[in-house]
Structure formats: structure tokens, C-alpha cells
């Protein structure tokens, strides 16, 4: 479970996150939906303690990120916006590196890596050096790497960014699977259909503020629009940055 309370973060004169409050529950997929520049990435970066918020509180499974950042990171699996791999290492070695940094033993890493390779259908690339990987292959490796420690909470920043149709479908299936395993899944997106198809709960964020935090159905009811996209436009007050 991830809780964000009154999060506030500014860079110079730009207020990136302006008092955001929401909650992502275990066994649910929570979508952080907003146009480009709404503050999604900054919010997530505060969650996985890459940044310190100027104000507000981040709780992961009840642990305060400001108090014990390392313990928070231990409970999170993170697929950041930046998902670079080490190109001179194989996919398996990339995964192995993070497993070791999480303090896992070799046998556990091996079992989990094999499982992830099967689940993400990446058997053909596992022993290849990641130089020259396609975008989809890179994302798969990055996900396997981020989840090697079987975290209860998973944060993904625009996970389908740059993926083709097939890879996007596979990614959605994978997120549902994580949910089925009882994990708390929080991902950001600016793509309406994606959020509508996947999420149990939608947190709409605009100009650093949470403008809605509902289930898809409640969201339609709240705005009086039957179409979720219209509901979204109505919420953020403009069509700016909205991808079809």
C-alpha cells in the first residue's frame, strides 16, 4: 500500500507537485493519469525516494520515506521513466546485478530470474548482451530487473511508452497478473484507453494537484459524461497534452 499525503515539490519557480494526496491499495491497479507536465513523474520520484518532497509525507506499507528511505525502496519495485540497461552485460546479468543489490542469494536470484524470463517471454534474449535490444526487449529486461526482489508494491512510470501494440498488450497482461498476485500496482500514463482498460482506481492529476480519485465508473458518474475521455477532459479543464 502506498499513501501520499499533501505532497509538495517545487523546482525554482515551477511548482511541480502542489499538495497531492492519494492512496494505492494492495491487489488493485491504480492509474496516475494526467497530461504531460502535470507532475506525474515528480510525484513518482518522490515515492521511490529519488527526490525529497519539500512538504508532505510518503508512506509505503506504513513506512515513512523521510524516516527510512532504504526500507521504503526495499518494498518497492520501480520502473522509472529512465530505464537504461548496461549494454555490456547480458539481460540476465543486468537482472542479477539488481538482485544482488537487494541482498538476495544466488539461488533465489536464479529461480526468480528464470520465472521472470518465462513470464515476460524473453527466453531468446536472456543470455544476450543488451546492446542493440529493441525498445520492447529493453522494457522487459528493465521490468524483470525491477521486480527481482518480489516487491509488494510496484511503481511504473509510463510503462507502455514507446512499445508497439503487441508489447503494450503483453504489458497490460503483466500488470493484471501482478494485481492478481495481490500486489499494489501504481502506474502513470497519459493515455486514456490504457487507464480505462486496466485500472481499479484512477487518480487524475493536473498542474500538480489531484483533481479526481475514483473508480472509472464513479468518475463517469461524477462528471456526468458517459465517455471516460470526455470525463477526463472535463476534469483537467483543457485538452492539452491528451493523447488519443
Amino acid at each position, binding site marked *: 500500500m502506498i499513501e501520499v499525503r499533501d505532497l509538495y515539490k517545487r523546482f525554482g519557480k515551477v511548482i511541480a507537485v502542489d499538495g497531492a494526496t492519494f492512496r494505492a491499495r494492495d491487489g488493485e491497479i491504480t492509474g496516475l493519469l494526467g497530461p504531460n507536465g502535470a507532475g506525474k513523474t515528480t510525484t513518482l520520484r518522490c515515492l521511490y525516494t529519488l527526490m525529497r518532497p519539500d512538504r508532505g509525507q510518503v508512506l509505503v506499507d506504513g513506512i515513512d520515506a523521510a524516516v527510512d528511505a532504504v526500507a521504503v525502496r526495499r518494498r*518497492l519495485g520501480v520502473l522509472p521513466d529512465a530505464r537504461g540497461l548496461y549494454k555490456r552485460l547480458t539481460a540476465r546479468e543486468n537482472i542479477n546485478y539488481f538482485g544482488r543489490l537487494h*541482498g538476495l542469494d544466488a539461488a533465489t536470484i536464479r529461480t526468480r530470474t528464470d520465472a521472470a524470463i518465462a513470464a515476460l517471454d524473453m527466453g531468446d534474449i536472456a543470455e544476450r548482451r543488451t546492446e542493440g535490444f529493441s525498445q520492447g526487449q529493453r522494457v522487459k529486461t528493465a521490468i524483470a530487473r525491477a521486480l527481482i526482489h518480489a516487491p509488494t508494491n510496484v511503481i511504473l512510470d509510463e510503462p507502455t511508452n514507446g512499445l508497439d501494440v503487441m508489447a503494450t498488450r503483453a504489458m497490460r497482461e503483466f500488470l493484471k497478473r501482478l494485481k492478481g498476485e495481490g500486489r499494489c500496482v501504481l502506474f502513470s500514463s497519459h493515455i486514456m484507453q490504457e487507464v480505462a482498460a486496466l485500472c481499479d482506481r484512477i487518480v487524475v492529476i493536473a498542474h500538480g494537484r489531484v483533481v479526481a480519485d475514483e473508480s472509472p465508473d464513479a468518475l463517469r458518474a461524477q462528471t456526468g459524461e458517459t465517455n471516460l475521455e470526455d470525463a477526463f477532459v472535463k476534469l483537467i479543464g483543457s485538452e492539452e497534452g491528451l493523447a488519443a
Partner: protein
Amino acid sequence: MNPAMIVFLKEVRENLRDRRTVINTLVTGPLMAPLIFVLMMQTLITRELSKAEKPLPLPVVGAAYAPNLVAALKQQNVDIEPAPSDPERAVREQDTDLVLRIPEDFAASWKKGEPAQVEIVYDDSQRDTGSSVARLRGMLEQYNRQTGALRLVARGLSPAITHPLAIADRDQSTPQSRSSNLFSMLPYFFILGGFIGGMALAIDTTAGERERQSLEPLLANPVPRWQILAGKLGATTAFAITTVLLSIVAFAFVGQFMPTEKIGMTLQIGPRFVAWTVFVMLPLAALLSTLQTLVAAFAKSYREAQTYVSLLMFVPVVPTLLLSVMPFKVQAWMYAVPLMGQQIAITRLLRGDSVLPSSMLLSFACTTVAVIVLCVIAAQVYRSERLAISA
């Protein structure tokens, strides 16, 4: 396993797979210093030897006006050559090193007993001419003295009256100390070796990691940032130290075969030299690696980091130049200054001068303290938010 150790092993493994880095660390860095040095020595030795033994080729203008002088020069192993039509131009354009010009009125002045002028035409800015000019001048002076003495004797005077002073040279230099200026450059080559060895990793583990967008996922791991930094610094230092070690060993090996004794120089490149040089260079290699990492961490991109780190390479030149251009008396405190201490220590070791173990320890300790201070600064830089963000 300690997270810093995991980072260390991964960086070493990854960079060992990069052929260019490996070649720089194991070949280019270590061999560059000894090779440049050997080439320099060889040129110098060959030149000195050939100059001293070979006949001196000497174009002479107006040789006919002073047949006796020319004959005396020939006796001293000078090859008299026909003169070029324009001696000044020939010298300027390096067609010949020097030209001796005997004016038309030489014989007339000579017979009258007045000083008869001869001219040596040469270009002092040409490195090669110095010893030839000195050789010719020595011969002319000798001829001058001989003839003068003969004239005095002919007038019934003792030649001794023209020498109220008898000057005797008592040179206190040793073969080693004579070679010292040449060797004051050597420490810089070792330092440069360390620089080259650590450079690729310093950039790859900081700016490179950020540019390929792998730093943010890395920092999402449950490991304190300073431990990640420690692993990266350790890997960079390990590469730099490998290069320095190989460089010193390669130099010691190659140095054995340099025929320095032919020009009266002796190098002290024994186990003592190797052991102490390694001892003072170890913390310096760490210092350079930390400095490189720190500088590269500020860079926004790989390219920018390369520029910064390359500029940094000129920093160690400063003490080298300072010490070779304005030689000053070595004071004990100088060993405490990183770079300068190593510079002095290695030069003195090579010359076979005494170096106190306490001075070596001082150099080691002070450089180590500098390393620690830089590490603390680097750790502070690593704590900043700006560092982690890729784009």
C-alpha cells in the same frame, strides 16, 4: 556481500568487456611512459655519441686566406667543405649547422700581429647546433692559445705572463645528478598513466551511467548512495592503480636496457626504486581517480565529462614544469603536497639520492588525507537530487 563490493565487481566486469578501456589500462597507459622515455633517451644518446666521435663537417668561406688555420682544424678531425653561396641563408634554412667565414683581410691582420677575425655563422635556436659550435669554438681557442704562446716565446717572453689566473674545475655533480633534469619529467609519465587508466571508468560510472539512463533505476535500489559511490570509486581506482603498477614495472624493465652509462649517466632502477615509487604512487592514483569521478559527476553528458577530465590532465603538469624550469632546494614540507611530493620523491629515487622513509610516509599520508577529503565531497555531490536525474 557488501553493496559497495557488488557495485565494484559489476563495474570491473563490465569495463573489462570494453576492449578500448582494457587496451588503455593494460597497454596504452602503462607503455606510453616508458616508450616515450626510451625514445627520448635513445635520440639523446645517439646524438651525443655521434657528435663526439664523428668528424665535424664544416663549410668554410675563404679557406684560402688562412691555410695554416684550416690545416690545424683538419688535424682535429674537421671535414672542410666548400662553402654555400649565402652562408646566413643556408644556416637559417638548416641546410648546414654552421659555417666558418674567414675574411679577405685575415692574412693582412695576421701578419701585422693584430687580432684577425673569423666568423662562426650559426642559428642558436636550432637545438642541434649547440655542441657543434662549442666544438669548433674549442678548436679555435686552442689554436689561438698555441699561436699566442709561440709569438710570446719568439719575443723571449714566458707564455705564463698572459695567464695570471689558473682556473681549475672541481665539478661536484655525479652522473646521476647530471641526468636529473632529463628525468624530472618521468613522474609525470607515471601520473599520466594513472590518468589514462582511470579515465574511462570515471566517466562511464558517472556521466555515462546518467546518459544511458541507468542511474535512476540503480538509485532505486535499497542501497545508500555513498555505498554505490564507494564501489564506483573503488573500480576506477583499481584500474588506475593497475595502469600505474604496470607503468612502473615496464619502466624498470626497459630502463635496464638503456645504455645511459655511455653518456656518463646512471639510473637507479632497482627493487628499491620500484618499491618506493609504487608506495608513493598508490594514494596518488586514488586521488586522481576520485578527482576524475568528481569532475565527471558534474558533467551533464559523456562528452562534457570527457572535456572536463581531459582538461584535468593538465593539472599534474604544473608541478612538473615548476620543478624542471625553476629548480629550487627541496624542503621537507614539499613532500606533503600531493603531486609535488611524488614528483620530488621519484626524481630523487631515480638519481640515487637519499630519500628519508619519513618523507615518503609524509607524502603517502598527506595524499591519503586529500583522497578522504575528496571522497567526502564526492559523497555530498552524490546526495544531491540533481545528480540522479537523467534528462
